[in-house]
């Protein structure tokens, strides 16, 4: 419950405060969000499987964001940033969907 409230609070803060982001970081925000969402869905699924672990969640969250950002940054330097961001989004999107399906099976038994 508290994590969900924290998430909603964060969205509200971001939308209303509109902090200025350095323009160099702007292209990485959506990628970071998708990578972090993947970690969050994995954590929810682990919670339902009964094997959730805070430390693993924190490490996977941070490393997911860093690796996704690094891959896209590397792609930008090599001139294929757009394609690599698409790749990252596709891969993480597939994982998010599979995890969401597992969560759905847990919750609705269907």
């Amino acid at each position, binding site marked *: 419950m508290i994590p969900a409230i*924290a998430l909603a609070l964060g969205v509200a803060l*971001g939308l209303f405060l509109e902090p200025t982001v350095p323009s160099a970081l702007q292209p990485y925000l959506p990628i970071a969000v998708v990578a972090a969402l993947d970690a*969050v869905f994995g954590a929810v699924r*682990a919670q339902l499987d009964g094997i959730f672990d805070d430390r693993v969640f924190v490490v996977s969250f941070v490393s997911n964001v860093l690796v996704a950002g690094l891959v896209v940054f590397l792609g930008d330097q090599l001139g294929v940033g757009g394609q690599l961001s698409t790749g990252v989004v596709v891969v993480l999107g*597939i994982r998010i969907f*599979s995890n969401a399906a597992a969560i759905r099976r847990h919750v609705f038994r269907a």
Partner: protein
Amino acid sequence: MSLLVDMMTNTLDASYAEAARRRCGAEQPAGGAGGAAARSGVVSVVLLLVLGLVTGVAAAQVRKRAAAGGTLRAQLVAEVHRRTSESDALAAQAAGLRRSVAVQQDRALSSGTTGAAVARQLAALRLAVGVDPVTGPGLVVRLDDARPGGVGATARGGQVGAGRVLDRDLQDAVNGLWSAGAEAVAINGLRLNALTAIRSAGEAILVDYRPLSPPYTIRALGDPSALESGFADSEAGRRLSTYTSLYGLQLAIRRSDNQTVPGAGTPTLRYAVAAGAGS
């Protein structure tokens, strides 16, 4: 293939299972480990807060960028309107000055008999060339684009938007009116003289290099019945009525007992000089 299959099946981070195994092996640690768990719980909540923040910021950025594009467009539209009204005001000023020049001219010429003759000749020439506004009976031809979703779905001559009135339709209509005996023609209040061009630039139709927007109202002065029958019989009239049935163009023709078309201003000749004047 195995990479894709692996990606589809092993979606849960393996480290969760590993950590669970490790926990089982450690057999419920007590005391200090509880504090560590609480700390990492706080860290996860903070991470979720950060995730929400980043999401909100990213969404706000996208929205701000879209709004910036919108304001830019609005600014440009306002600029276009301002310039157009400026140019309209200048045109009105030019028309006023032209009238006062004509009045002065008449006054200057009205002193002697030769002057009066010159003034009469001048007035006739001005009327014929289209400098002065003229009034009289005539025909009003109204052309408009096809209604959206109408018949005009097929392409016409490879042009985009077959249901649109093109520059050559206007040229056709004007030529048809001239050939039917029109003595003065104006499109949307712009008088046509011998040098007026009707052309298109992009999707806009320019008459005398001024962009016009539909509907296009062509006023022609002349004998209304002769104009009407002549226009209907002309090739241009027949073609336009074909377009109305084929592409859904809207063509409306009505007679007018009394209408005024404005003057066009003095045509500026840059190269042509009177043949007798030498050089």
